[in-house]
């Protein structure tokens, strides 16, 4: 008992220190560094959600950009057309993302496996075309999101930090909860999970809705930083490409995978900022190599070899 308490204290205090460091990043006064950290947190949140779907719930979606687009456009419409505060935009973005997810879940869950994968992608593409033809959102011209001109990088950074930490905490709590047991069981063997009384459909739906909400909010914050939104970019596959690469590289079906993956992804992308194609080429090759030689990704492989687990959802007997 004593040793467990000691371990817990150590864990909590190191987390507190880490959090303090992250909070202090803007004090460094290097806008570029702040921005890189901001991106890491936002991408981490996206990665966590894709991992929740593909790594645990067996839902390999290539349509998560749906929710980024909804989040981003909600922000743009609320702040530009209605002149309301950005916080309202973010909240509505999250809400609409869940509602849309709920609406499409009925038909989209009829599609299994690769049909689901491409089905979600088609929905995203269709939304992109639809928005390009919709006068309310100014067709393909899109919006300049002017609120973000009035926000400093630091402000957006703290939002991103909040989103990142919240998504992390959410996934952790989720996996330690009853739902987490079901998810881990489903990840390992769906049919056995079902015979143990786990309702696959319900569990998957919960994950789909949670992921939609968080991805929607994250999308809103991302567009608070990007400051310009258009249908082809907002509903473009590039967002999901990022999620897929991060999670594969970091380790699919692990809690820490998306964190490592996000750091990798953002750093490579920023390092090769002037050659956007090259960073994706490198990441693509890296992802393929990892699938071929270390399908569990960085974290999963370390995990197997050294029993290394930073944030374990384990129950000990």
């Amino acid at each position, binding site marked *: 008992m004593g040793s467990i308490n000691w371990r817990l204290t150590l864990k909590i205090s190191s987390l507190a220190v880490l959090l303090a460091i992250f909070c202090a990043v803007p004090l460094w006064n290097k806008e570029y560094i702040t921005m890189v950290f901001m991106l890491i947190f936002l991408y981490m949140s996206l990665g966590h959600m894709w991992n929740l779907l593909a790594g645990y719930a067996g839902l390999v979606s290539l349509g998560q950009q749906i929710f980024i687009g909804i989040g981003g456009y909600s922000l743009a419409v609320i702040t530009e057309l209605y002149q309301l505060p950005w916080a309202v935009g973010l909240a509505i973005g999250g809400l609409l993302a869940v509602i849309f997810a709920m609406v499409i879940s009925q038909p989209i869950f009829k599609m299994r496996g690769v049909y689901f994968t491409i089905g979600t992608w088609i929905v995203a593409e269709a939304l992109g075309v639809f928005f390009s033809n919709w006068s309310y959102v100014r067709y393909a011209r899109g919006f300049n999101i002017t609120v973000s001109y009035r926000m400093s990088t630091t402000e957006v950074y703290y939002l991103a930090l909040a989103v990142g930490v919240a998504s992390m905490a959410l996934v952790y709590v989720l996996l330690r909860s*009853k739902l987490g*047991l079901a998810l*881990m069981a489903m990840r390992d063997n769906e049919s056995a999970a079902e*015979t143990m*009384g786990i309702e696959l459909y319900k569990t998957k739906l919960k994950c789909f809705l949670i992921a939609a909400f968080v991805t929607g909010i994250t999308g809103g914050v991302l567009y608070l930083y990007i400051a310009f939104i258009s249908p082809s970019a907002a509903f473009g596959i590039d967002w999901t490409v990022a999620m897929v690469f991060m999670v594969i590289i970091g380790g699919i079906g692990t809690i820490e995978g998306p964190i490592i993956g996000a750091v990798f992804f953002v750093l490579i992308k920023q390092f090769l900022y002037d050659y956007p194609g090259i960073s994706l080429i490198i990441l693509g090759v890296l992802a393929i190599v990892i699938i071929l030689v270390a399908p569990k990704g960085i974290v999963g492989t370390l995990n197997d070899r050294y029993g290394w687990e930073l944030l374990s959802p*384990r129950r000990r*007997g």
Partner: protein
Amino acid sequence: MKAVLQIQDLSISFGNNHVLKSLTFDVMPKEVLGVIGPNGAGKTVMLNILTGTLQPTKGKIFFQGENITHKSITERCRMGVGRTFQVPRPFEKMTVFENVIVAGVYGGGLVEKEAQKRARGIIDKIGLSPKINWFAGKLGLLDRKRLEIGRALAINPKILLLDEVAGGLTESEVVEILGVVQAVKKQGVSVVWIEHVLKTMREGTDRVLCLAEGRNIVCGLPEEVMSSKEVLDTYLGVDER
């Protein structure tokens, strides 16, 4: 005494392959019913129908008097139908402890604390205590089969469906499994036990049913069934493993 499980006129076909043909039998309370039959007789298919994995083409299943033919897999599980898989399907990246907890929480309807307590007891009973924190993927065949039983027990079943839990095990290992089944029976659980090893069936069951070509060809006390003409005919040329 009223039967726990009643199977009435159960049939299933896959295209032209009529696997079960009008199968009828009852399982009584606190009874261990052995099911034998040659390879491909339809034993596993029968189990899959009982758990809801497959839908029968015809026929009805009553569990404690209630018609469960159209209930879902999870509903039946929660009503107390526990099963094992012929080829074990552990949750490989979860520990033995967690494997059993999952079943307790979802199938048994317990809160996690309670499920943990039950899991410890069950793991002790199936002899996996030393490996409680092992990843299930690292277990050998015997331990996997034990874990299958453990998970099925954790849902607190009223009926336990076992699919060849003793197949491929050594003599002493089989004795262990026999002990577990007897203990389960003492708690008032009925058991349907599919097995090829006739010796185990003779020792561990109250009644034996022989399934051949999808039909219940003979059913009765183990000794009678084993020496019946029908079973000898069916197994003629098949040595007693």
